[in-house]
C-alpha cells in the first residue's frame, strides 16, 4: 500500500515535469500502445448510439490483455461506462440502441455484438456501481449464476462458493453465516459478495463499473486489494473516476474523452510519461 502511494506521488511530479518540458505530448492527438502478451478481446472501430440518437462511443479501437487489469478513466460523461456496458450488451435491455464495429472475443475471434446477448452475458461478468445482491441468502447469491447454468450438485456448489468467496476475500467474514440474508451485510461486504457472485461462473472478462464509488475508504481499500489479487488470474476491465485508483490497481489504462479513446498505454507510462497533451492535462488536474 505504502509503495503504491509513493508511486502515485511520483506520477504527478513526473507528469508536471513532462508538462514543463512539453516536448513529446503536444504533437500527438491519439496514442495507442500495442501490448505484448495474449489478448482476451479486441475492440475495433466501435461506435454506439443511444435510443435518442446521441452517439456515446465514437470509433474506439482497443486491445484487452488476457489476465490483466485494464482501467478506463476520463471525465464524467466521456462514455467510459457506456463503453464498458457494450462488453456484456447491457444496453440491449433498453430499446432502440445501435452498435457498429466489433468487439472480438479471443482466441475464438467471435464478434460479441453479433452473438445472442444472453450468451454474451454468460461469458462476460459484471459488477455494478451500487452493490446489488439479490434479497436472498449469501450462499444463494454466490450460486445464482451457477444454477441457471444447470449446476445443481451440492458438493460442486459448496466448493465453488468457498473458492469464490475466498477469491473475493470474504470467506473468513461470512463462512459461519452463509445462509443469512445478503442484505444484512455491510455495503463493502455486499460489493465483495457481488464480485464473488460474478467470479463464481468463471467469466472470460470481468467488468467493474466504478465498484468502489459507493463504499467508504476502508471498504474501498479491501476491494482494491482484491482486484490486485485478481490480476494474473482474471481479465478485468474497470471504470473508475479516481485516477489514483487506476494507478494503483491496473496494468493498462485507457483515457477516454467525449466518446473517443485518446490514449491507451501501460498504466505506469500513461501516468508518468503520457504521450498525448490531452491525457497529461487530465491526469495533472489542469482539466476535468
Amino acid at each position, binding site marked *: 500500500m505504502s509503495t503504491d502511494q509513493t508511486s502515485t506521488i511520483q506520477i504527478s511530479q513526473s507528469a508536471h515535469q513532462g508538462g514543463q518540458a512539453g516536448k513529446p505530448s503536444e504533437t500527438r492527438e491519439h496514442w495507442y500502445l500495442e501490448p505484448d502478451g495474449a489478448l482476451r478481446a479486441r475492440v475495433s472501430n466501435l461506435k454506439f448510439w443511444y435510443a435518442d440518437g446521441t452517439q456515446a462511443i465514437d470509433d474506439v479501437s482497443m486491445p484487452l490483455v488476457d489476465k490483466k487489469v485494464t482501467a478506463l478513466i476520463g471525465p464524467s460523461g466521456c462514455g467510459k461506462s457506456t463503453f464498458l456496458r457494450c462488453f456484456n450488451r447491457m444496453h440491449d435491455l433498453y*430499446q432502440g440502441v445501435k452498435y457498429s464495429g466489433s468487439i472480438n472475443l479471443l482466441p475464438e475471434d467471435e464478434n460479441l455484438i453479433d452473438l445472442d446477448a*444472453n450468451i454474451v452475458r454468460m461469458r462476460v461478468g459484471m459488477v*455494478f456501481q451500487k452493490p446489488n445482491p*439479490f*434479497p436472498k441468502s449469501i450462499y444463494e447469491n454466490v450460486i445464482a449464476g451457477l*444454477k441457471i447454468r444447470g449446476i445443481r450438485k451440492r458438493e460442486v456448489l459448496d466448493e465453488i462458493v468457498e473458492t469464490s468467496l475466498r477469491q473475493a476475500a470474504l470467506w473468513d467474514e461470512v463462512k459461519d453465516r452463509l445462509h443469512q440474508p445478503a*442484505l444484512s451485510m455491510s455495503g463493502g461486504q455486499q460489493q465483495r459478495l457481488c464480485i464473488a*457472485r460474478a467470479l463464481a*461462473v468463471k467469466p472470460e472478462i470481468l467488468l467493474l463499473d466504478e465498484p468502489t464509488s459507493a463504499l467508504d475508504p476502508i471498504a474501498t481499500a479491501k476491494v482494491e486489494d482484491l482486484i490486485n489479487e485478481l490480476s494474473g488470474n482474471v481479465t478485468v476491465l474497470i471504470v473508475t473516476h479516481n485516477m489514483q485508483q487506476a494507478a494503483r490497481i491496473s496494468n493498462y489504462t485507457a483515457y477516454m474523452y467525449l466518446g473517443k479513446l485518446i490514449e491507451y498505454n501501460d498504466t505506469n507510462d500513461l501516468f508518468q510519461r503520457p504521450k498525448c497533451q490531452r491525457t497529461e492535462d487530465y491526469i495533472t488536474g489542469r482539466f476535468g
Partner: protein
Amino acid sequence: MRPESSGVQVSAHFLRKRETVNQIAKYVLMAAAAISVLVTVGIVYVLVSEAVVFFEEVSVWEFISGTSWTPLFAVPTFGILPLLSGTIVVSGIALGVSIPLGLTLAVYLSEYAPDKVRETVKPILELLEGVPTVVYGYFALFLVTPLLQIVFPDLPGFNMLAPGLVMGIMILPYTTSLSEDAMRAVPNSIREGAYALGYSRFHTAVKVVIPAAISGITAAFILAMSRAVGETMVVAIAAGQMANFTFNPMEGAATITAFIVQVSMGDVSHGSVAYMSIFAAGLVLFLLTLTFNLIGFFLRKRYRQAY
C-alpha cells in the same frame, strides 16, 4: 464573531396565533383518526352483542357443527357449515382463476410489455373494478352458466362454478395491479444484476423479481381473498340461495353473504332467532376476513425487503 441576526421582528401575537392553529390542527386530525377507530369498534360491538343473544337460543356447538342451515323453516336449524362450504368453494374457484391469471398478467406488464402497452392495459384493467357487482351477477347467470351448460349439460341454472369464475375476473384488478406495482418497485439494479449473470428475461422475472416482490404480491392476494369472501351480489344472483352442504361446484349453494342479503330483504321479523342469526353469520365472516388480513400482515412483515 457572532453572525448578526436577520433583523426581521416576529410579533408575540403572531407566534401565539401560530401556536393556536397548531393545536387545533392536532385535535382535528386526532378526531378524524378516532372516528375510523370508533366506527370499527361500533360494528364489532353490534355484531358481537347481537350474536350473543343468538347464542342464548342456539348452542355454539350446534352452530359450528351443524350441517343444515334452515332458519326460515318451521323447524329451523342453525348449522353454519353449509354457508361456510359455499363461501369456501366460490372463493376458492375465484382465487384459482385470479391468482395464476393475475400473476401472469403482472409479470407480462411489469417485465415484458413496452411502456405503451402497459399504459393502455392497466387503466382498462382497473376499469373492471368500476363495474357494479350486480352486472357481474347477471353476467354469471345469463351468459357464463349457459355457456358452461354446453360443456356440462347437467349443470343446474344455479351453481357455484359460474359465479366463482366470474368473481375470479372481478378481482383480477386487485391481483394484477397490486402485484404489478410490487414488481415494478423492485429496483432496476437488481434486474441488471440478474441479466449480467446471464439470466434470461423469464428467469429474471421468476427467479429474481417475483421473490423480491413477494411481500407486495402476498398483500395483493390477501386483499383479493378478502374481497372474494366478502362478495355478495354475484353469488346471491347466480348461485341460488339454498344453503347446501357440499363442496361440489356443479351444485347451487348459498354463501354467508348471500344468506345475509336474503334475510335483510325484510321477510323476517325483527328480533326473531332467524333475524339474530345474520349477526352470528356476519361474525363468522368478519373473523374469516380478519384471519386472512392477519396472515397477510405477518407474511408481509416476514418477507419485507428494504432496499
